[in-house]
């Protein structure tokens, strides 16, 4: 699997995701600077976490307008898989690759903590290593992760199986106690219609080694390698 990780001014988890990809594939992904309109052909494009452009204006809004995102949109339309994590989720949402928006956390504070996620489907190139209904533990670290979409969009997402992950309690209950930010329907991550674009707030890249947060996030990267190699 050949991957590219985008780097915007203010990105800061690009190293973490590159490290996770390298751990699983044995190969360092290409780091692509935001100003580059073109980059090598890859099997996967990762939009990493951070504070692109300082998150000024609105999280992800400025990055969504950068030259590299025009190219990402073009490739996504051709079916190249795109993974947006945290600020990357905000960016791909602002770029229109995924519906809905990410609002300020309901408690108005930044939150960094392990959370539990229920995997909604194993039928995607991202989640094929997990079982539907499986509960995994990965961290979140954000101030604007409160997913929202209008009722019609939400119904479409639910009906078409576009919900990838939901926040849950350790025993898998989808309820407020497991929701770190107030996201509607406990949504932590969603697919586009073709399930070739995944956006999620949690950080699977920070859960790939036993001593450093556990290994529950590793399946996501292994699954992509299996699907894309």
């Amino acid at each position, binding site marked *: 699997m050949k991957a590219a990780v985008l780097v915007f001014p203010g990105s800061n988890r690009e190293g973490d995701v590159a490290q996770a990809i390298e751990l699983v594939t044995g190969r360092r992904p290409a780091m692509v600077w935001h100003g580059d309109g073109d980059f090598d052909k890859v099997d996967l494009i990762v939009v990493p976490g951070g504070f692109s*452009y300082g998150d000024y204006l609105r999280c992800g809004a400025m990055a969504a307008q950068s030259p590299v995102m025009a190219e990402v949109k073009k490739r996504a339309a051709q079916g190249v898989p795109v993974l947006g994590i945290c600020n990357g989720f905000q960016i791909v949402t602002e770029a229109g690759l995924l519906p809905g928006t990410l609002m300020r956390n309901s408690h108005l504070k930044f939150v960094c903590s392990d959370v539990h996620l229920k995997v909604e489907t194993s039928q995607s190139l991202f989640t094929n290593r997990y079982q539907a209904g499986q509960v995994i533990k990965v961290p979140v670290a954000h101030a604007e992760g409160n997913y929202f979409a209008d009722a019609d969009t939400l119904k479409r997402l639910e009906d078409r199986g576009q919900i990838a992950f939901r926040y849950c309690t350790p025993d898998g209950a989808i309820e407020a106690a497991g929701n770190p930010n107030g996201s509607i329907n406990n949504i932590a991550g969603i697919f586009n219609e073709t399930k070739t674009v995944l956006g999620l707030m949690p950080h699977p*890249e920070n859960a790939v080694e036993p001593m450093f947060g556990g290994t529950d996030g590793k399946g996501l990267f292994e699954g992509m390698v299996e699907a894309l190699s």
Partner: protein
Amino acid sequence: MTIAQEKNPPVKLPNEPAITPQIVAEHGLAPDEYERLLKIMGRTPTMVELGIFSAMWSEHCSYKSSKVWLKKLPTKAPWVIQGPGENAGVIDIGDGQAAIFKMESHNHPSYIEPYQGAATGVGGIMRDVFTMGARPVANLNALRFGDPNHPKTRHLVSGVVAGIGGYGNCMGIPTVGGETNFHPAYNGNILVNAMTVGIAPADRIFYAAAAGVGNPLVYVGSKTGRDGIHGATMSSTEFNEDSESKRPTVQVGDPFVEKLLLEACLELMATDAIVAIQDMGAAGLTSSSFEMAAKGGLGVVVELDKVPMRETGMNPYELMLSESQERMLIVLKPGREELARKIFEKWELDFAVIGHLTDTERMVLSWHGDIVGNIPIPPLVTEAPMYERPWTLTSLPAELDAAKVPAPKDWNASLLTLMGSPDLASKSWIWKQYDHLIMGNTAIRPQDGDAALVRVPGGGHKGLAMTSDCTPRYVQAHPETGGRQAVAEAWRNITATGAKPLAVTDNMNFGNPQKPEIMGQFAGAIMGMSEACNALDFPVVSGNVSLYNETEGRPILPTPTIGAVGVIEDIATSVGSRLVKSGLALVLVGETKGWLGQSIYLRELHGREEGAPPPVDLAVERRNGDFVRGEIVGRRVAACHDLSDGGLLVSLAEMCLAGGTGATLKLPKGVAAPHAYLYGEDQGRYLIATDDGAALIAAATKAGVPAVQLGYSGGTSVVVEGLLDLPLDDLRAAHEAWLPTYMNSAA
């Protein structure tokens, strides 16, 4: 500009006021200090010159009251690459790598404007570390707030925590540890001490000393605005009721720009273009340019009109004294300007050549071709005021007789009260607002161990343990003991993870040094720290002094915060304090006499802050610690926790909560006062969980270390036979609830 021109006396700017005694006083210069200035200059200074003297001779920049005492601290060891005097301390951590670290206060600004004050404190200390070539890998902070019932405390906690998180999170550096205390002595003067640890190749450290006559002086980063003018002078006076009108002297931070600055500086540092580099911190362009020239024994010409400016109409005085954030001053090798400019332009940062080095040993400031300031550099350093202020040591209070302190009537209630008290309650409300996981190297998270433990990037299996410690109530009661204890506890906390403690950064927060009893506290703390650092081979490599922490004459508790760093060769051999399985033997290492003087038990349950603090026997400390570390790296320990605030029972409760497993203890025979045994704060002790208690005790006996098995892990309660039986769920509720409940309740 030619040398001949440099000797011209400066011109006066239009509208420049005459220097009057009042203006001198407003600059914080005492009359005798102004006399010194006149002697050095041989004439009346211009406003910008007066401003420069004022900043450079402020307590904050000159250490004029503390220097004579700081010299008493040990600063050398074979692993020390750079001790105090640079932007940060540097130690060798093996494999060609160095750890670079420092702790610094931002107390006054954080009280006036908590979000920006704390945020720029974090930004400043990170700059100190990456200026030297290191990529920061961890942040810590030590916070002291006033009485929770004081009307301002909630607002200050909220702002400071948000500010620290806002800056550190955006920078992408994990905030992995720290401490938070509350005490009425901080009501009008909170403490915000921030520490950064970075990693650099040991042969690629960057220093501030300028070299090379004619080399260009380059300004990079943000533009200069009018914020923070006189910050260093403000930090060097006491607070009064007008303090909040000083808000314009607090700087405003932009962590996004600092992130760009970090990446751009590290990119430039990978080339061979840099001769010297210095961040613009307190006293901004003044102290950075001055220190670079002074350390290099050179002179400097600064063309102030070339400084990138945020506002129109700024004058030389404002430019020299602004404390705008996210700026660096660099001396480049000749001909490397374009290479450097390209890097900073890529990162969309300002870049300007604003001067050059000379051999005149003078600082010459020009403004549109006119010389507006011309100061000889060496005398400003050598003739700087230095005070041996009178000092009176605090005498050791009488020892408190533990037998006369009542035992709890209800043991369960006593532990619940302590675990839910402001100082001991969980601080997860705070550290969950800090990204403590970014970089993917955090092995021991907050509340899971005595020190934070972070894998060293590029360092194989190596880990860095770090902690910040001080028990201000001990220092208040007896500064020498308190100073000794702060160092010993930091050393112990590093040890409890299995890491070898290597070096210290100190952040000395005290009241007005012109009062002999305050200067005595400072002197006493230094004596105690010095003894402990010597005995534990734990040199001080960097630090910061913050004096005048008083409001309307009421001083804070003396607070010499100790930040410490240690190394573990194989991170897989480290342990945290989490009790994760049943059937482990619980062994208490170290001697327990039941010391209740100045204990949390005495304060929280009996409302008394009395007696002598627990004595620290440094030889015992070292013996016990070396033994414990050996057992940990020998993989004979499952979990380890040092005993500090609240003693044995509080440590046990913390281990149980962290791991989600209960425990049952039985007191040894012959314990006369169980409450003193369980809540006493005797030093040099650890609680260890191990698969083989007998073997551990045998090894301890052989090493001459007192050790006794007290019980086993297991169950879902904390039990002390015959005294206490408390479900973990109740304990967790009390421990976790206090801070969020407090923060969410209306003022």
